């Protein structure tokens, strides 16, 4: 089973989710996240997103984070699928899911994987809006979200 996949084809979250539990009865918890292309942002309506990535490094970096997640939580499985190329509103940009015996590990590991994916996996988004194309700027809140998982840091920003 492919843990990490990068594709220029539409992602089907239901099919990806089913694949994590098919043929096994040891899984007690599955947490799945889908990141979806919205049709608007603060500055206006979004026509499309174009995702660029660094082939080879993107897969390797996500795999490193999955290994780190497996070292930190008792996971039974993990899967990340990331879309590249041109995406229109309503389509899935990224799918991330974790399975474990109990829910806490699956919830936390899925959040951990997404936080690191946003700030460390080499993907870049360009947004097409009102006929103009602009590269999306990195957000400080994403860096802060990733930083709370650093060893020794407080576990939750809200604490």
């Amino acid at each position: 089973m492919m843990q990490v996949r990068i594709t220029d084809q539409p992602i089907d979250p239901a099919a990806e989710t089913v694949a994590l539990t098919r043929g096994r009865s040891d899984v007690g918890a599955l947490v799945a996240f889908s990141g979806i292309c919205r049709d608007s942002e603060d500055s206006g309506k979004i026509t499309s997103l174009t995702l660029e990535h660094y082939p080879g490094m993107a897969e390797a970096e996500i795999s490193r984070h999955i290994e780190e997640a497996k070292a930190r939580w008792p996971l039974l499985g993990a899967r990340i699928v990331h879309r590249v190329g041109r995406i229109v509103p309503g389509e899935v940009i990224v799918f991330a899911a974790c399975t474990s015996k109990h829910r806490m590990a699956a919830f936390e590991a899925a959040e951990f994987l997404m936080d690191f994916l946003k700030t460390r996996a080499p993907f870049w988004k360009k947004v097409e809006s009102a006929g103009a194309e602009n590269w999306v700027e990195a957000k400080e809140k994403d860096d802060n979200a990733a930083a709370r998982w650093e060893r020794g840091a407080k576990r939750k920003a809200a604490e």
Partner: protein
Amino acid sequence: MKILYFAWLRERVGKAEEDVELPASVKTVADLLRFLTGRGEEYAHAFENAKVIRAAIDKVHVKPDAPIANAREIALFPPMTGG
């Protein structure tokens, strides 16, 4: 040395990758950024805000002080915005 560029860095430099002959004085990623800045107008524009630029050596993130001597390829890119 093989250098790769991504996103707006690629657009500003005008190419996705190139082989660059580096002088011996270019020892770290920070040295490389300074060296590339002097290669022409498009490079000066691409690297004008060098502190935001991230680097990877052989597909692993590195800091500006990382030595580049044994690199096969060095990738330079803006902060990542996937997910």
